[in-house]
């Protein structure tokens, strides 16, 4: 019986804690009646800024709560097609086939809103001596059939990378960043197999931080002092520009892209208010704070 008493002592507080959590969660859910909860899903690139929007919007005081989740642009669009979200975030255009599917499934055509811009940064480890890179080189490195597999082929020797092999860090195929990189940098060619496909923008930066041999790409908002962002040129011979706010705004940085929010049909009521707020000054200030490029 002593044994059971010990177990009881351990389990009981845990159970108590859990049930307390359950109880304390309830009122928050109940207060959201009707359309006062907005479901927002999609792009991992945008998930940080979408979180900040949602949190800040609480303070506006309209009693609207916004539920944000990531998963990738494709995931958000798939949810929009299924009609289970109010707003889908995407860091790539919705394909025509996807728009048609959404219209067929839900009876409403998706409407696109540009809510900000993002520069896609190419990351290498901090000690990597490489400074700039061109689209051709990136294609040779990343695309199927490309010939560059070693750092020495780029003319550098990377400290801490004894094998000289370039370790490719990429994104899972539902990612808008993945699709954008394939379309605009690789010219629609497929990626090489064997890249480490990470499930989040942040994980790419984390893996590159700890792996001297690696190269990766992700939104510039995810940059940390522990990685290095390469300057990028679209063509050989062009001047390479770094991913900064100015270069993205004046379009000299070649891999900048728009960030979109999609709704089913023209938004109404609280969803419209929310999108207007995002595209207004308050929302755009958050875009800038999160490391992205605001609309103006």
């Amino acid at each position: 019986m002593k044994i059971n008493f010990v177990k009881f002592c351990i389990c009981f507080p845990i159970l108590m804690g859990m049930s307390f959590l359950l109880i304390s969660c309830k009122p928050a859910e109940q207060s959201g009646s009707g359309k006062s909860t907005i479901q927002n899903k999609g792009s991992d690139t945008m998930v940080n800024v979408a979180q900040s929007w949602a949190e800040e919007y609480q303070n506006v005081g309209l009693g609207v709560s916004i539920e944000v989740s990531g998963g990738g642009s494709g995931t958000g669009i798939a949810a929009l097609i299924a009609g289970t979200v109010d707003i889908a975030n995407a860091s790539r255009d919705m394909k025509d086939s996807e728009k048609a599917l959404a219209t067929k499934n839900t009876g409403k055509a998706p409407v696109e809103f540009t809510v900000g811009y993002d520069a896609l940064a190419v990351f290498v480890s901090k000690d990597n001596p490489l400074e700039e890179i061109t689209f051709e080189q990136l294609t040779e490195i990343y695309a199927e059939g490309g010939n560059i597999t070693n750092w020495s082929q780029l003319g550098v020797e990377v400290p801490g990378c004894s094998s000289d092999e370039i370790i490719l860090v990429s994104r899972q195929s539902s990612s808008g960043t993945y699709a954008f990189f394939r379309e605009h940098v690789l010219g629609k060619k497929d990626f090489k197999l064997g890249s480490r496909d990470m499930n989040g923008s942040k994980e790419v930066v984390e893996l590159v931080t700890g792996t001297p041999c690696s190269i990766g790409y992700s939104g510039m908002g995810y940059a940390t002092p522990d990685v290095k962002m390469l300057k990028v040129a679209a063509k050989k011979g062009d001047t390479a520009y770094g991913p900064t706010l100015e270069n993205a705004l004046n379009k000299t940085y070649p891999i900048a892209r728009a960030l979109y929010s999609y709704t089913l049909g023209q938004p109404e009521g609280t969803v419209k208010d929310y999108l207007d707020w995002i595209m207004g000054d308050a929302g755009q200030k958050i875009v800038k704070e999160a490391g992205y490029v605001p609309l103006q």
Partner: protein
Amino acid sequence: MPPNSVRFKAERPPPRRSTIAVVGESILETLIRLAGMSAIIFVLAIFYFIFKEAFPIFGSEEFSLGEFLFSTQWYPTSETNVRYGIAALIVGTMCVSGLAVVVAVPFSLGSAIYISEFCGPMAKEALKIIIELLAAIPSVVWGFIGLTVTSALVMKYTGAQVGINVLNGGVILALMCVPIITSIAEDALKAVPDSYREAAMALGATRWQIVYKILLPAAKNGLLAAVLLGVGRAVGETMAVLMATGHAVQIPQGLPFGWILDSVRTLTANIASELGEAPTQSDHYRVLFLTGVLLFIITFMVNLTADLVVRGIRRKQ
């Protein structure tokens, strides 16, 4: 009258049960029967659902079963040339789960034997509670540990160029299997009647001789079941391997040991990361379900082998 005699009240009427008790009992019986049957219903329903979603792929022009099983080219979302080959993913699953089982089995059998035979009552209770606690850690937490802690250790001590690889995933998975195998194996050892131990001791056997010659053979079935449940966990685990193995579609290179430091992707991780984006009813979606069917078949084979082996052992005895 003798003082120790007992007087029975022979004339007491037989106990009458109230209507509530009678009706309640039959309701309870039905409920329990339903609960028992529900397992069968659920399995059949899942089976039906997965097959229904996967089956139409055989009508698609872009798909061939040979390519699916034997090609290593996995390009489900390609804009130019869609290819569905999961050979690399099958190899990845086998590498990671195989390594996990090889690492986990000696550890868990060892700790089960220690807990059941060698340690004192205090240590025993403490260990059992801690091992149960270990089993309760969510897999995403294990995955996170794999991504941040053990991957750095793997890089530091093996000189691997990238920390998230077969070894990293295998070790994390082994840590997840250990509590399950240990607690079931410990139950199996406990189920061996004490009279066996006493008889062996009376014959002058040492503790180790008792374990090796008496307990292990006597608990063989239970131990095997424990190991196979561990294998099932290893094959089916998703979140931790998704984060810890590097998620790279390739057959790990380098014999005899180099492969252990290469990144791979497993079948389960592939389904988890891609099913969310695959448009419903598309080829990609159906191929992912077909992967689910394949996983189903693999676990079925593991269970069947287990069953046959256990029966074989019984017959010999």
